[in-house]
């Protein structure tokens, strides 16, 4: 398939979306759940702190939202750039 300008734009938009999604992905798990946990230790959640909640439950919920948002957004981008499956 030849490289068309629209394909380039489509790919750039995709990379932007994936990059931002992965920034959030890393922030909630590696950030809030592990490395930044001491910073969140002041916020109490049911007998422990917010970092513990992110490590055991919060990250998973954010991952779910991320994937569904990505799928919805990408499927829209496909149509906008005319590269969706007919």
């Amino acid at each position, binding site marked *: 398939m030849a490289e068309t300008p629209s394909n380039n734009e489509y790919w750039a938009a995709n990379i932007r979306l*994936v990059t931002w999604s992965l920034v959030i992905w890393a922030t909630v798990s590696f950030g809030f759940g592990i490395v930044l946990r001491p910073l969140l230790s002041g916020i109490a959640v*049911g007998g*422990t*702190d917010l970092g513990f909640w992110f490590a055991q439950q919060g990250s*998973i919920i954010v991952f779910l939202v991320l*994937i569904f948002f990505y799928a919805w957004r990408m499927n829209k981008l496909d149509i906008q750039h005319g590269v969706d499956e007919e």
Partner: protein
Amino acid sequence: MDQYTLNLLFVGATFALYIGIAIWARAGSTSEFYAAGRGVHPVTNGMATAADWMSAASFISMAGLIAFTGYDNSSFLMGWTGGYVLLAMLLAPYLRKFGKFTVPEFIGDRFYSPTARMVAVVCLIVASVTYVIGQMTGVGVAFSRFLEVDNATGLYIGAAVVFIYAVMGGMKGVTYTQVAQYVVLITAYTIPAVFISLQLTGNPIPALGLFAEHTASGLPLLERLDQVVQELGFAEYTGAQGSTLNMVLFTLSLMIGTAGLPHVIIRFFTVPRVADARWSAGWALVFIALLYLTAPAVGAMARLNLIDTVYPNGTAEAPIAYDDRPVWMQNWEVTGLLTFNDANGDGLIQWYNAGSESFAATAAERGWAGSELSVNRDILVLANPEIANLPGWVIALVAAGGLAAALSTAAGLLLAISGAISHDLIKGQLNPNISEKGELLWARIAMAGAVVVATYLGLNPPGFAAQTVALAFGLAAASIFPALMMGIFSKRVNNKGAVWGMLAGLIVTLVYIFLHKGWFFIPGTNTFTDADPLLGPIKSTSFGAIGALINFSVAYVVSNATEEPPQEIIDLVESIRVPRGAGAAQDH
């Protein structure tokens, strides 16, 4: 009806259900055998993927590891779910667009090299066999308990069942069998958790119960747990104990490994459209999250219940006498996975952290001569309903659920291994003229070989089920994931780069694991231990992330030092990146 009969009845009934569905679904769709999932709704496909994915490690082992370690093992929870984000955004839609059926096929075509395909086959086999060892450990635990035999016998029986189950083959491909297995395993996991959450906190949703008030003490559940474990010299449950660097690398290894394991990836090859590959990853995670949000509650509540069982009058009072121990302890003693050794000869079960220096004085004062109870982490989930005094049918249901989880994944992995050997290696490389019958024979030989190796190593496993499985993820992370990702996101990485990258990642990771877990996992041949690893705090289970980094770096350097890929490969990458035209790729 006694517990033994009840167990047999539940396990037997669920097996009959799977076989029944397989026969019913197979009769109508023999021609669609290899295209399982195509034309299946993304929600259904997501559920089947979840059953494929959640193995003995998730079901039997993980909550136990969290229970005995606490916060530090949150890595399992984040790692085994976070990988789906990578899968959905970096691999699944593109591999679907490519439209072939196996991972080595993609790597062979994208890197225009039969050598790359063979290296991918080796990586796939190494990671999958390690994974099967972990499943065997879990299967052994489950069978030994519900048939009331010792652990080794349970393992042999389990191995035979796995082999027969996998050789029947077609069952794996039938999406509806997996849907049934998912329903059995999620029901079996959730029901006891709901009962226990109600008992301890009055909240029927375990995920919320974890952060609710412990009714008996009036304190938040986790605060109460922190209190009682520390009263026995154990580390604080919600506190970080190990190294932060190791925890980050371990979590990352599990995430990358999730996106690099062949039996999960192939599910996305076969959804109807590229858009569905994205939705399917989301739905798979929905069904996985139902178990993963419950698991930390199961772990914390089981730990609390276990301590209350041993110290019925509180940790400051004397523990229970061995002669008064509950029936479930007696049952698990039969398996050899729970043992009592009366170190100070007083007939009471002292269970505490004998390794704690700060607690040593208290222990000496109370006349304790060492912790007398040893509990294998892998029994916790299966023993959980018995510890909480739940009815017999719940116990039987959990046994059936654990076996469903272990068998569905083990069978899927064995099929991936046998396919790689008979299809990619023998037919693709050594003997292209082999007859279909010959190919099938080799598939069975490969399967039998893998079961024998996994059973032998499962007798002296390199760790608890989930830890062994974690090693498999490290291997997949270091070898397969980087090759797939570079194949899609880089037009510059060429055949030589991919081959040397995969080899470097696999070999360095494998050597690091063998140095800590013994060469070829044979006990006693290790030079280092995970308590004192070769590289600072980095345990062998966490090394996959570093292996992946080595893979990426080697591939980048080698590719830039050698010629660019040919134009048709650059065109192939361009075409993988857009969904349009995927329909054509469907026709095989």
